[in-house]
């Protein structure tokens, strides 16, 4: 073997390591869409559902239930769009979408996310909703950082940004919605655009 063979070996090793351990089909467009849904959802919430001055948001009241439903729809449509765009991209690149790496990615993503979601629901039950936005951002950020080991790209940095934003949000009570829009809306759109730009290159 001469040194070109060794070089070929090294390239092959790198290629196999990436292919076997990292999920590469996440689409940048899905980030942009998730951001748009989040901003639209927040706008609806702000103009129609939030308590006006002097009003109180009642736990399990009509507006409260609508808010929760709105939140779940934003999440649902984001996931649906991501699933649709990602399968499309995977098909184009001839990659399998459901393999061991994807499973690990999902499990590692869901552990912090579900923990956070349940925690927020438990706190809601005892009328503590002041920190919901902050907690959503922090746990979502942790989920991204945790899942980033299994993807190519810079999801990690999106995660760090969400965590930092969540912590700042905790310092300023009463501005939850603003930070929520910044994190789930603006950051998603910025991150998605960067990803999308890189994909097109």
């Amino acid at each position, binding site marked *: *073997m*001469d*040194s070109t063979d*060794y*070089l070929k*070996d*090294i390239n*092959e*090793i790198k290629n*196999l*390591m990436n*292919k*076997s*351990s990292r999920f590469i089909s996440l689409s940048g467009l899905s980030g942009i869409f998730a951001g748009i849904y989040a901003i639209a959802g927040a706008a609806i919430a702000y103009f129609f559902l939030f308590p006006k001055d002097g009003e109180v948001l009642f736990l399990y009241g009509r507006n409260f239930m609508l808010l929760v439903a709105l939140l779940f729809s934003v999440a649902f449509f984001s996931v649906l769009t991501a699933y649709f765009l990602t399968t499309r991209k995977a098909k184009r690149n001839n990659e*399998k979408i459901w*393999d*061991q790496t994807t499973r690990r990615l999902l499990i590692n993503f869901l552990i912090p996310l579900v923990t956070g979601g349940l925690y927020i629901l438990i706190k809601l039950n005892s009328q503590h909703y002041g920190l919901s936005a902050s907690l959503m951002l922090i746990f979502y950020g942790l989920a991204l950082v945790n899942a980033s080991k299994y993807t190519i790209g810079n999801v990690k940095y999106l995660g760090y940004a969400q965590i930092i934003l969540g912590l700042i949000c905790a310092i300023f009570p009463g501005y939850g919605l603003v930070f929520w829009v910044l994190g789930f809306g603006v950051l998603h759109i910025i991150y998605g655009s960067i990803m999308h730009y890189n994909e097109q290159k």
Partner: protein
Amino acid sequence: MGIIDNINKLFDHRIRLGIMSILVVNEDADFNRLKELLDVTDGNLASHIKALEQAEYIKVEKTFVGRKPNTSYSASKLGTSEFKKHIDALEKLIQKPI
């Protein structure tokens, strides 16, 4: 002389090198997953796995998924460190004009 010592004869084959590459970055992988990633036949893969297993570079775990037997492989500590040594040696060989 020193560099050549670290070139591992056992890794001097595309498939064996491939198996180790996959196992050092994944907790474990089963037979079909290896087969799919390396694009080899059953018999070919099995014989290379056996060679690595005999050198105790990989660990084999047999379990059942429902009623189907499922064999999963993972890199042993020895295997991982030998693989790292091999890669370092390869890199040095490339950098050094011969």
